[in-house]
Structures are given as C-alpha cells and as structure tokens.
C-alpha cells in the first residue's frame, strides 16, 4: 500500500457532503493563488527573486519583506512566489510520469490476461520492496543527481502505487455488473473496453493525480533537501528550505516559509483531490 492508496481508500469511504468545508474553501483559494504564482509570479510579487542585496541579508519578516530576506538579501516572499512554478512543475511532472507508468503497467496487468498480470504483479511487488526514497536514491545513484533526475526518480517511486490502484480499479470495473450488462446487451469487447472499462478506470486518475501532486512536491523537496534536486539560484522550495536550514538558529524564516508552502501545497492538493473525488462520485 502506498500513501496514494491510503488517500484513495480514505476518500472512497468518506460520506458525501455537499457544503464545502472551510478547509476546502481555503484550499481552493490557495490553489488559485498558487496557480497564479506559477503562471504570472510578477502579479503577486513584482520584485526580482534573484536580486541580491548583501546589505539587507538575514532580515527578519517586516513590512518591506513579508517573509524576511535570505543570506544574500533576496526577498523570501518573492522567492517563495517565484518558486511555486518550479515546485508545482516538479510535482506535476513527477506525477505525470508516475501516473503514466502506472497507467501503462496497470492496464497491461489488468487487460492482457492472467499470465501478464502475474508477471506485472511480481514486478510491482519487487518495486514495492524498495520503500519510497530508496528507489529514488537508487535511481539517482545510477543516473546522477539533478532536477530532471529528481522528477523521474519521484515519478518512478510513485509509479508502483499508481499501477496497483489502476489495476485494482480495472479489475473491479471489469467484473462489475454494468460491464456484464453491456455484455448481455451484445456490445463487443472492444466497445466495452473503450466505452465502459477505460473511462471508469481512468476517471479516478484525476483524483489520484491531484492527491499525488502534493506528495510528489514533498518528495521532490526531500531530494532537493538532500542536495539531489534543483540547482541554484532557482527558488525551488526544497532547495530554499535546505539552504535556510543552515541558518535555522539565527534566521528561522528562511526555512519556515518555504517549508510552510510545501505543507500548504500538499494539504491543498489532498483536500482538493478529495473534494473533486466526492463531487465526481455524486455528480
């Protein structure tokens, strides 16, 4: 079981609730802000995230610098806003890779017969024996560190989880009563696959993807934190947090705000994913 599977299981059990909760409302607002930051960071923070000002280094949060300044006098608020693009992009790209691999593996396992299913399953089992970060570290060991590697590594280590959810979903849909009903109606296997099985299998991927982006951002940040991710002076949150940690005893804001936004983004993604899922279920 993976974090995603937990998230998926949890949301499946959640009772319907039509009125959006405070968390959902907050998440929606935050999501709009994050996407704005990613697309047009200058709208939210007009400054230059790379502009150094050594004389203003280590400034604590103030009216001029809401989140304080870093060791080079850069404005942390501007950098956090600017970092949304990189962090979201990394999260999205890793999720797309993980989800893509998961879809391929899961669909292969779920459609190509028992023997293929068995083989893919064993393969997934083996991948599962490398818990999360281990798989990512091993991949980085082989390919070498860097932002691209980090994305692929995170994607790769989430893929088995996706694959298993997709396979299970595929099998559930395939053996569902409505697929039987379609058979009784005389629909061909191909039409059943394309009209019923695949849409019903893949629709939850939107939810999975949303849930996954949050986790992927946390993971990618962990790799950046270990020095295996984004490159300077990129304002990627994990890298900022890692850099800020050095000064934790004298300038807590340097690591606090990037970390806060990693957490907020993950919370936002989880909460939105669940609410989308609920609404899809009851649409």
């Amino acid at each position, binding site marked *: 079981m993976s974090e995603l599977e937990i998230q998926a299981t949890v949301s499946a059990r959640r009772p319907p609730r039509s009125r959006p909760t405070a968390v959902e409302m907050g998440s929606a607002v935050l999501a709009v802000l994050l996407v704005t930051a990613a697309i047009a960071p200058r709208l939210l923070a007009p400054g230059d995230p*790379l*502009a*150094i000002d*050594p*004389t203003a*280094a*280590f400034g604590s949060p103030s009216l001029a610098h809401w989140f304080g300044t*870093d*060791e*080079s*006098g850069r404005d942390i608020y501007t950098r956090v806003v600017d970092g949304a693009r990189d962090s979201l992009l990394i999260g999205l790209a890793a999720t797309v890779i993980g989800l893509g691999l998961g879809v391929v593996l899961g669909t292969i396992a779920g459609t190509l017969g028992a023997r293929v299913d068995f083989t893919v399953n064993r393969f997934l089992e083996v991948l599962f024996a490398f818990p999360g970060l281990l798989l990512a570290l091993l991949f980085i060991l082989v390919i*070498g*560190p*860097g932002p691209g590697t980090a994305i692929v590594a995170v994607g790769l280590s989430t893929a088995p989880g996706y694959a298993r959810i997709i396979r299970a979903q595929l099998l559930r849909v395939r053996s569902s009563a409505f697929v039987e009903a379609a058979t009784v109606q005389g629909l061909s296997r191909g039409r059943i696959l394309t009209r019923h099985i695949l849409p019903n299998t893949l629709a939850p991927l939107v939810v999975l993807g949303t849930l996954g982006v949050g986790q992927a951002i946390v993971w990618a940040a962990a790799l950046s*934190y*270990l*020095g*295996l991710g984004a*490159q*300077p*002076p990129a304002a990627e949150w994990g890298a900022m947090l*890692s*850099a800020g*940690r*050095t*000064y*934790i*005893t*004298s*300038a807590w804001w340097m690591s606090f705000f990037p970390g806060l936004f990693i957490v907020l983004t993950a919370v936002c993604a989880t909460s939105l994913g669940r609410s989308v899922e609920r609404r899809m279920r009851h649409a």
Partner: protein
Amino acid sequence: MGLDVIDYWIASNNATAAVPEPSTGETFLKRDNRMPRPGIVRSTPRPLTVALAAGAVALGLALTGCTAGSSVTGNDTPQKGGTLTYASGDAEPTCLDPHVGGNYPQALVSSQFLESLVSLDSDGTVIPWLADSWTVSDDGLTWEFTLRDGVSFTDGTPLDAAAVQANIAHLQDPATGSSTGYLALAKVTGTEAVSDSVVRLTLSQPDSALLESLSQPWLAIESATALERSQDENCAAPVGTGPFVVESWAKQNAITLVRNDDYTSPPADAAHEGAAYLESITWRFIPDSASRYAALQAGEVDVIDNAQPDTIAQASSSDSIVHLDAPRPGASNRIELNSGKAPFDDVAVREAFIRSTDVDAAVSSLFQGSAERSYSALSSVEPLGVSRPDLFEYDPDAAADLLDAAGWAEKDSEGYRTKDGVRLTVVFPVSTNQSIPAEQSLFEQIQATAKETGFDVQLTKLDLSSWYTALGSNAYDAVSAPYTKVGPDVLRILFDSSAIQPAPSGYFANHAQVNDPELDSLLAQANATNDADTRAALYADAQDIVLEGYYILPLYDQQNHFLLGSAVQGARALPTVSTPAFYDAWLKR
C-alpha cells in the same frame, strides 16, 4: 544535505615533478610573524590572537625540545578528569590510520592519538616533537633524525629508529593506499637505522618541504608492531604515542578515546607535561550543522567543528560559547578560472570576470566577520604568501570595457554578453561536499553580480564523484577546490603545468590549467632550494605570475572554525594543519 564540509584532502599526482637543482646548506626557515596564527577568540567577532606566548624557536642543526606557551584562556588551575564530547561535521573517516588515504577528517581525530616527528609553532617555525633534533647533509639528500628518549607507543613498544623506518615503509607501500603521505615522501628513497635513536633518510633530490611535510598528521608515527596487524585492525584502532588511545569506534556514531596515562611526548609548544587532563574524549559525527550547533547550545557536546558563520556570530555575543578560528594552511579558498578553454583562455575575460564580482560585500554579509577577504593564492597562515588587493577590486565598468575590447560586446535578450552568437557562459560545478552553505551562497552572489556585467554563470551542485567527473572531463570554466598542505610547496601542486593532464585516475590539481614554463621553473627551483630567502623570493615571483595572470579569484582562508562550550579550557589548534588539540584541555564544570 547534512554533510556540510567534507574537505577531502586531495593529493596530487604530480608531486614528483621537481626540477633538479642542487642546493647547499641546511638553513631552517624563520619568518616574520606577519599573519596571526590560529588562536582562541573569545566573544569577539574578529580573529584576535590571545596569549600567544611563543616558545623558544630552535634553529640550526642541533635543536632541543622546549616547552612552548600555550593558548590556555582560563586563569583557573586545570582540573583532571571528565569526558569531553567533540562533534565533527566532517565525514566519518573510513580508517583512523591517516597513512591510509590521508584526508582532513582523519587528521582531525588522529591528532588526538598520533604524533609526528616534528611540529610547527605558532610562527610557522618547525619545532621538535617525536624527533628531538635533525641534521641535513650539504647536498640536501641525507637527513638524520634523533628521536626523543623514553617514548613508548601505547602498546608498550618503544619509539626507535626501526619504528620510524617501518612507518616510512608503511607509507610507501602501495598496499597501504596512502596518497598524502606517499606524495610527501616521494623523494625519500631509503631509510637506515643509524642507531636505536637515530634514523637516516636518503632523498633522490633535495626537498625544502620535507620537514613541513613530516609535521603533517598524515605522516604520524605509529607502533611498528601495530602496523603489522591487518589493515582492518589498524584502521579500527591505530597505535601511536599520543595523549589519548582509541578505545572503541561505533561506526556512524562515535569514537571513544581514553587518556594515555603514560604519556611523555608533548610537542615543544604544549602547556604542560605528563598525562592529559581529560579522562576521555567522545568523538561524535553530527553531519547536520544546525543539529551540531543546537547540540552545543544544549550542552550535549562540548566542541563542534565546521561552525557556520551565523552561529559564529551568535557565539560571539554569547557568554557560554567560545570561538576558535584556525584557518588551514596551504592554498586559500579561491575560484580557479579554466584558462585552458574559452572564454577564460583570454586573460582579458578572466580579468573582466574577476572585476565584475563583488566578493568583498558578499564575504562580509555572508560570513558576518568570521572570514577575512583574501587576495593571495596562499592561506594567511603561510608566511610566504603574497597578497595583492589591487588586482581584485570590484570594478564593473572596467570589466565591461575589457569585455567590449575582447569582442564580447553584444548582449542578448536576457542581458548576457555574446560573441559570434555564443553566450558568455561560465560553467561552475560546485561540490556540495566541499563548499559550506555560506560559500555556496557566495557563489550565488558572484553569479548575480557577474550577471550585471553580462556573464551567465551556471552553478551546478554536484556530489563529490559527479564533481570529479565534471573536472576530469574538462566540463567547467570555473571551480573552487580546497587544498590543504603545510608550506608554499602547495603552489607547485596547484599550478605546475604537469598538473593539467589528468592522471589515469582522472584527477588533477591544476584546475586553472596554468601553463607557464617560467612558473614551472620558479616552483621547481623553490622546492629544491634550502635557502630561505631564495625560496621566499622564488615563491613571491611565482605567486605574482599566478595572481597577475588572473587565473584565480581568491576568496578567503580555508575556513576552519571551532566552537567550544564555556567549560572547555585550554584547547587549541595545532599550528600544523590546524587540527584541534585537547592535550592541554580540561573541563571547568
């Protein structure tokens, strides 16, 4: 990541490239005390030497050991007993015997239980340690060391000529896998036990750096009996003559060192005689700098190394933490510009780059007073260092003119200069293992200021092996690599043209790819002469060539800061490679 500083002490493969030049006389070097030596700094942000009572400095052939003053800062009477906990941010050594390999983390810990034939005092003068005295023949090819009387290794075997022979053989045995010590002894071709207490070394060529080399912890003298054990055993618990003994080593956790009650061989500049005050030392490895400092604050540890600039600044305003600034010898920390390929094959572009980087402002803001800007190729503790502030002034206008003249007049849409459609790009791989965070931030600021002039500095953080690979494949325009060695001979390792070509292993030290026959010749002569003034002059000329050629952008000394809990008294850094020494230390609790 947590491994803030892993200063792998890297050995060059080019040490043997010396110009044969017979030298005469056996003058030992005495220099002016231009720069402060490592000293204790209490509650002040600026390095300040305190109570440096220089001991007698021995000159000439016959030399007797003297007790030097020490840098004890407390006024109280030393108390015996107690366990000092030391927290190292350096990588945990893989072998405690510094003969094997030979890097700085090994030097840090082995200084507590191993001792060398000679040491340096705070002026950089060679002083006796395990060797009471030494002579050198006129041709500089034969050295005789007279060993101190009554010294035993902690396994009970005596320190004698045979033991020294065994150590040199051990260092020169390829099976040992020594790199640092092996290089330092490159010119030593034979050893002979003249008597029990006199050992003779025969050299193939004169080596003015021999005594400095022998003072390094990587050439410490170990028990011959112990060296005969398997390498695994020897790595786990080397046996020396030092004030402490390795009791146990729990990997990735701590090394436990206990007092050697029979200790008799303090260096000439130690503060007391007899056994150490401390009962034991717990030597821990805490890679995360924030945790390390927090542990010191919380009183969980007594001493930390690799202190970060902000914590040093904090410590200076705190009564409970004392700062010990001990810059390492050898090269200064500098950015080397790859003159072997475009764009830095053009001296004007190199100068333009140097002129367009505002290092002073960055150093003062990032290091908060804990580091002083360097304008020299050598560490400030190297007496022969030449400092040329005039060459490194921040002058973006001059830089722009230089670039315009050099053909980099166009600017692209992002504001970077171009020439024939090629962007003025500086690829700058950064080893996360060798550059502390503040230094990485410094590079980012250099990146930002250089951008204003039109340089596209591309910083890439790499782990050590990827970084080596980038260097080996000449895929860099600028790089910063630390190099620690006692004495100015380090210049030969870093700038001799023979050090451009990678060795079969891929490593080379001349990252600036300086290829200047005149420089090669100056360095070879300096290595071969035993005349102090000649040597100093030769090294001064050599440094001028390097600095005026804008091959390097000096930053500051190799940072080596220790923070001590207020209970720790009498600790100091050894003047050789600035490793901490706890022989005189005691705990005032």
